[in-house]
C-alpha cells in the first residue's frame, strides 16, 4: 500500500513539474522576464506570456493584462482581430512581439502583434500591501495583486467615498482612495476592464468612508501606483 501511495505521489510530482515547466519554458528567440525587464525602452521585445484579463478591444486592437510566473506585461493596443480576441481567456498563452514603451511611468508593450500558443497559467493574486509606499512596489508593476485591510478615505472635500469620471452617465472610470498606516493611495476601477454592471463597480459605489476593504486587481501605473481593481470585499 505504501509503495502504491509513494508511486502515486511520485506521479503527481512528475505531472506538477511538467505543468510547471510549461510556464517556464521559453521558445526560441523569446525573452525571459529578466531580459524583458532589462531591455531598453523603444527596443523590440518578444515574450511568451499568459492573458490574465482583457481590458478592451476596438478597431482590431486589444489591450491586455498578461503575466508569467516571473513578472507581468501590459500589452497596449496589440493588433488583434475580434475573432482572436474572443479566443483569449484568463490563462491563454500568447507570444507577443512589440516595442517596450513607457507612458506616464507605465511600462508596456506597444505596437505589438501576438499569436496564440498552447499553454495555460492563471496567476494568483500576490499580496503587496506591505510594499505600498516603498520603492519595491514598482517591481510588481502590472501583476495581479492584492491589498488587504485598507481603509476607505474621503475622495475629496465633499466627503464622498469615491468619484465618477462621468457622474451623470456612469460610463467611465471610478476613483477612490484608501489608506494604510497613515498613508493614502489612489485606486481606480477602470471602466473598460470593469464596467458599471460588474460586481466591483457596484461594490465601490457602495463604499463608505471608514470601511475596511480587501482588494484584488492589476498593479497599473500612472505617475505612481494606480491599481486597476477587479474585486473589493468590505470586511
Amino acid at each position, binding site marked *: 500500500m505504501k509503495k502504491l501511495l509513494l508511486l502515486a505521489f511520485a506521479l503527481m510530482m512528475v505531472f506538477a513539474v511538467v505543468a510547471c515547466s510549461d510556464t517556464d519554458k521559453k521558445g526560441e528567440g523569446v525573452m525571459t522576464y529578466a531580459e524583458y525587464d532589462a531591455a531598453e*525602452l*523603444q*527596443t*523590440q521585445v518578444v515574450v511568451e506570456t499568459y492573458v490574465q484579463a482583457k481590458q478592451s478591444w*476596438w*478597431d482590431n*486592437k486589444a489591450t491586455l493584462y498578461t503575466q508569467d510566473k516571473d513578472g507581468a506585461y501590459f500589452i497596449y*493596443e496589440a493588433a488583434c482581430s475580434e475573432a482572436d480576441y474572443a479566443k483569449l481567456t484568463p490563462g491563454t498563452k500568447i507570444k507577443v512581439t512589440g*516595442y517596450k*514603451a*513607457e*507612458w*506616464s511611468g507605465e511600462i508596456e508593450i506597444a*505596437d505589438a502583434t501576438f499569436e496564440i500558443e498552447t499553454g495555460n497559467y492563471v496567476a494568483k493574486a500576490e499580496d503587496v500591501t506591505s510594499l505600498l509606499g516603498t520603492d519595491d512596489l514598482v517591481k510588481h508593476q502590472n501583476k495581479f495583486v492584492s491589498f488587504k485591510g485598507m481603509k476607505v478615505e474621503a475622495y475629496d472635500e465633499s466627503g464622498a467615498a469615491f468619484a465618477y*469620471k*462621468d*457622474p*451623470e*452617465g456612469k460610463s*467611465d*472610470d471610478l476613483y477612490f482612495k484608501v489608506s494604510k498606516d497613515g498613508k493614502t493611495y489612489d485606486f481606480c476601477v477602470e471602466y*473598460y476592464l470593469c464596467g458599471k454592471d460588474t460586481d466591483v463597480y457596484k461594490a465601490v459605489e457602495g463604499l463608505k468612508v471608514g470601511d475596511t476593504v480587501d482588494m484584488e486587481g492589476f498593479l497599473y501605473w*500612472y*505617475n*505612481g501606483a*494606480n491599481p486597476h481593481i477587479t474585486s473589493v470585499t468590505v470586511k
Partner: protein
Amino acid sequence: MKRGKLFPALLAALLLVPLFASCHGSRALDPFVMPESFDTGRQFEITFWAKNDTNKTQMKVYTDAVAGFEALYPNVKVNLRFYTDYGRIYNDVITNIATRTTPNVCVTYPDHIATYITGVNTVVPLDSLFADPSYGFGGSELRYDGPERDEMVEKFLDECVIDGEHYAIPFMRSTEACYINVTMLESLGYELPDVLTWDFVWEVSDRAAEKREDGIYKANGQKTMIPFIYKSTDNMMIQYLAQRGAGYSTPEGDILLFNDTALSLLRDVARHTATGAFSTFKISSYPGNFLNAGQCLFAVDSTAGATWMGSLAPHADIPPEQFVEYEIAVRPIPQADPENPKMISQGPSVCVFNKSDPQEVLASWLFAQYLLTNDVQIGYASSEGYIPVTKKAHQSEAYREYLERGGEDGLEHYDVKIAATQLLLSNIDRTFVTPVFNGSASLRDAAGQMIENTSKSVRRRETVDDAYFEKLVSDVRSLYRLDQHTPGAGGSGAELGKLPGPSVALIAALLVAWLVMGGVVLARFLHNREGKS
C-alpha cells in the same frame, strides 16, 4: 487614465457613415420648419450631451444651466449626459444617427458635424433660427437675456459654417499656448522672448537635452528630461503649415497636406527627437506633468488646460512630492514669422439635431441659445483658459472684473489660467481654423500621425530618411483613406486612375447579364409578334 481611443472611434465611425448616409435616406426626416410659436402647453424632454475636461466647475456650470433653463421653461426637461472626450461623443452620435436616437443638443466640433450632415436632415441648419424675430438671437419671446446677433464674436460664428450654412453655434473658444519653465530657461543662459520662434525652441531644447557623463540631465539634475512636449501633434502640423503659408486642404476637400513644408517639419521632428529634445503626449504623457516635475521646458497644450500648469496648479496628476518650484510664463505657440503670428482657434460648438416634431427642435434651440447667456458663458470660460464666444460677455462688468483679478487666488483667479485667457483675447484676429468637409477629421488625424510615427521611429532607431518619409506618406494616405480624396475631388474619373481588374470583370459580367436578359426579352417579343401575326 484613458488615451488613444479617439482615433479608433473616428475611424470606425467613418466606416459607419455610408450606412446612415444611404440606407436611411429613404426614410429621412423632413427638413425642420420653424413653428409659429413655442407650445408652452406641452411637455418636452430633451437630451444634452456635454463635454467637460474632468473639471467639477464645468460640470456645475452645465447642471446650473440646465436648472436655470428648466426654471424659465418648466415644460422642458433637459437630460444631461457628460463626456470627457470628443471622440466618444462623435462615435456615439454616429451610432445613434443610424438608429435615430441622437441627442437633441450636443457639444461637438464642426469637423464632426461635417460627417453628421452626410445623413439627410440630421442636423438642423440654424440660419433661419438665428434670424427668427421671436426665438432667434435677441428674440422678443425669449425668457432670458441672450446675445443679439451682432453681440456674437463674428469670427467664431463663422467657424460654424459648413457649405454656406451655420450648423452650430460656438460655445467656447481656446487656442494652444506654450507653457514655459522660465527658471530653467534662464539657467541655460537664455532670455524669454515675447514671441517664441521654432528655431529658438529647437535650439534651447537641444541644449536642455544635454546630459552629464553619469546620464543625469544638466538642466534639471534628474534622470528624466523632455525639453519640448507637444500635446496635439495634429495642431502642431496644421499651425506650422499655416505659419509657413503652405497648403493643408481646401474648402472643397482637396488634400494639400503632403507637401515639402510638412516634410521639413517632420525632418525637424526627427532631428530633435534624436537629440532627446522632443516628444509628444501620445508617446510620453501629458506635457503638464513633465513641466510641473521640472522635466520639461516648453509644454504646448491648450489654453483650456492652463489649470494643470505651474508649481501651484489647482489641478494635478502627479503626486505633490514630484512638483518643483519654478517661474512659469505663457506664450503663443512657436512661430515661423514672429511679426505675423498665427495660431489655431479651437473649442467646443453646439449643434441641434433634427427630430420629427418641430416643437421639440425649437425647445432644443431655445436651450442651445441659453448656453450663450452671460452666466453660462462666463461661468464656463472662467473654469479654464477658455474665452466666451459673445461680445456681450466680453464687455460685461463681471467678465472684466474676473480678468482684472488675475492672481488674486490660486483657483478661480489662478494667474496662469488668466494669462492663457488673455493670450487668446489679444490674438483673436490671429487665429484661424481649417476647412470643414466630410473627411476633414481624418485629415487632421493624418497630420498628427505623421509626427507621431516619425518621432516613434527615431526612438526605435529605425532609418528615417527620404525613403522612410515616402513610405510614411503612402501609409498614412492609405490608413486614413486619404487616397480617396484627390485634388479636384469629385472631378473627372480620369483622375482616379484605372479601375482594378476585379472591378472591370464585375462590370463586364453585369453588362453581359443585361445583354443576355435584353436578348431574351427581345426574342420573346419577336416570338409573340410572330405568333399573333
